[in-house]
């Protein structure tokens, strides 16, 4: 029926009066990093946990690796690895013991050799004998990713894996996630970081208030807004007149901050040409001309009318 490794159709979840997930359909292809992007409370985690079989959907169907998640949860659990948002682990066990224990719980190989391999994969070899509570935030996330790999899963689910990490740790984790993808596994992750979605994910579903607004590659998503952008410049001579520039073709908004003029436009090329002609005619001097292409942030803003919180 389909080649997609995950096929979600018309998924719905209600909590009392609130509809947390509203008629969500999506497909994830084998071997890709699929991101669900949205602000907190958009329904990302609920969607993910229903796909993982941790929450019962109120409606819709979910097929993972060919198995129906609701009816055949056991088969699904054996084929997926999960990392939950903000799970702490058993106290008083070492990192190595935790990896070995979870491997055994999956009926997988919990031997010291295999444990070492997994810890090596997530760069925690030296931490094998430390207790999990003593690890840094980034190390704890890497440990929970190691736990998501103990059963050599086909699909790995990561719920906000980089939240709360410093930029360096975040970049290290991206490399780790890419290396897992390169082993032939499929990765589904949630994030509320634009940059992460744009740089890490092969495809993105943009989610807000329980629905998926768009689903495509980052480049295609941005291309839908190809013509939009902004132009800004520092005027060195006379003060520019905002009203004058606001009348240029394509300009949606013109603002002046000190000597710096910023134009938001729906047609970057047209506005840029007009801007240069206007300044030349009037002999207005400027430097630091900057044009920006749209980002996912702009895409999100454009389709939801609100900004993502970073």
């Amino acid at each position, binding site marked *: 029926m389909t080649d997609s490794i995950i096929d979600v159709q018309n998924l719905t979840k209600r909590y009392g009066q609130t509809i947390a997930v509203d008629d969500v359909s999506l497909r994830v292809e084998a071997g890709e990093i699929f991101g669900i992007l949205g602000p907190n409370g958009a329904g990302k985690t609920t969607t993910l946990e229903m796909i*993982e*079989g*941790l929450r019962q959907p109120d409606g819709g169907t979910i097929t993972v690796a060919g198995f129906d998640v609701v009816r055949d949860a*056991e088969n699904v*659990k*054996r084929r997926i690895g*999960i990392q*939950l948002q*903000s*799970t*702490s*682990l*058993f*106290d*008083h*066990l070492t990192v190595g*013991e935790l990896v*070995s*224990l*979870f491997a*055994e*719980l*999956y*009926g997988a190989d*919990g031997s010291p050799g295999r444990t070492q391999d997994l810890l090596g994969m997530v760069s925690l070899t030296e931490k094998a004998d430390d207790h999990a509570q003593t690890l840094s935030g980034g190390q704890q996330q890497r440990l929970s990713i190691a736990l998501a790999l103990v059963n050599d899963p086909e699909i790995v689910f990561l719920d906000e894996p980089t939240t709360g990490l410093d930029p360096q740790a975040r970049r290290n984790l991206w490399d780790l996630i890419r290396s897992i993808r390169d082993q032939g596994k499929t990765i589904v992750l949630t994030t509320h970081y634009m940059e992460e979605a744009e740089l890490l994910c092969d495809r993105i579903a943009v989610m807000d208030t329980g629905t998926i607004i768009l689903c495509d590659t980052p480049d295609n998503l941005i291309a839908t807004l190809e013509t939009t952008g902004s132009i800004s410049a520092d005027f060195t001579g006379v003060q520019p007149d905002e009203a004058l520039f606001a009348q240029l073709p394509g300009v949606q908004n013109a603002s002046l901050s000190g000597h710096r003029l910023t134009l938001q436009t729906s047609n970057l090329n047209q506005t840029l040409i007009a801007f240069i002609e206007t300044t030349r005619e009037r002999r207005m001097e400027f430097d630091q001309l900057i044009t920006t292409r749209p980002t996912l942030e702009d895409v999100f803003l454009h389709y939801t009318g609100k900004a993502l919180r970073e």
Partner: protein
Amino acid sequence: MTSFLAMTVANFKMIVRNRTAMFFLLGFPVIFMVLFGFLFGEGETRLHIGIAGEDSSPIAIAIAEQMEQTDGFTVYRNDVDHEMSAIDDGDRLVVIVFSEGTGSAQLDADIYVNQSNPTFSQIGLSAVEQFLLQAEMEITGQPRMIQPTVADVEAESFGFIEFFLPGVIGIALMTNGVQALSSTFVAFREKGILRRIKGTPFPLWQFILSRITTQVVISVFQIVILVAIAIMLFDVQISSSYLAMAVLVVIGAFTFLSIGFIVSAFAGNTDVADAAGTLITLPMMFLSGVFFPTDDAPGWLQPIIGLLPLTYLVNGLRDVMIRGAGVEAVLLEILVLIGTAVAGFLISVYFFRWESRSA
């Protein structure tokens, strides 16, 4: 099966490496018993004995002098009025008043026993009686010249530690089951560990059974230590078969674990679980006859006492350990405990939650 074994081994490591838990599991009951044992225990606390009227006979004087030299007795020799007011004030455990007997070679001894602490009094009385019998034999070479009359005593033949040990075992099983289990389990839920386990193919019932197995084994280990200390330090005589005792201990462990699971099912977080655990265990500790017999408790309290599982466990253990009863003699206790355990597990399965209620 290997996953069950791995989980159980991990459970053991978690408990053994948790110093606070270990203190409450092992240190606390042991300290409890040793402390109470030395405070009230036979042979370890000096018995305050008053003697009066010994002047009536040289034998009585000899007995009084010998008693003064005996370890464990603190002897006061005064006139009858002084000693009787001393026992009224609680300063004497036993007062012996000698008087000339009816026959020429006979000696009467009225023995007054302080009833404010029945258990301790029993120890004192039996010690005094034992002493009188031996001393008399040594001094006179004749048996039973002294005619003792005991006032106000329904004497039972065991001492405080023998009375207390089954109580301490009950407390240990109760705290281990109710408090240790519920606070760990609620913490597992609060931290999302239960949800993480739900994401694995490892079944919930095995996860719970693994925890139960660990707790029961630890409880048995704990009780072996308690009994060993009681035997070594206080010379406690266990009159029963250890099998009957083990049956009660294991059933009791399950009963209190089931109550712990009920607490876990309803408590939203660890603070609530700890408070609920204390609220359940503390009254039981005092109402179930752990420290003193409940026969003298007011009538209106008796039905409540009769509802507490710890009452049945402690009574059963006492019958078995001290009075030498077999399993058949404590069937009622066993049935009540099993009934409580089954009801507890059913309730907690029905109300089981994977996650904290919030969010």
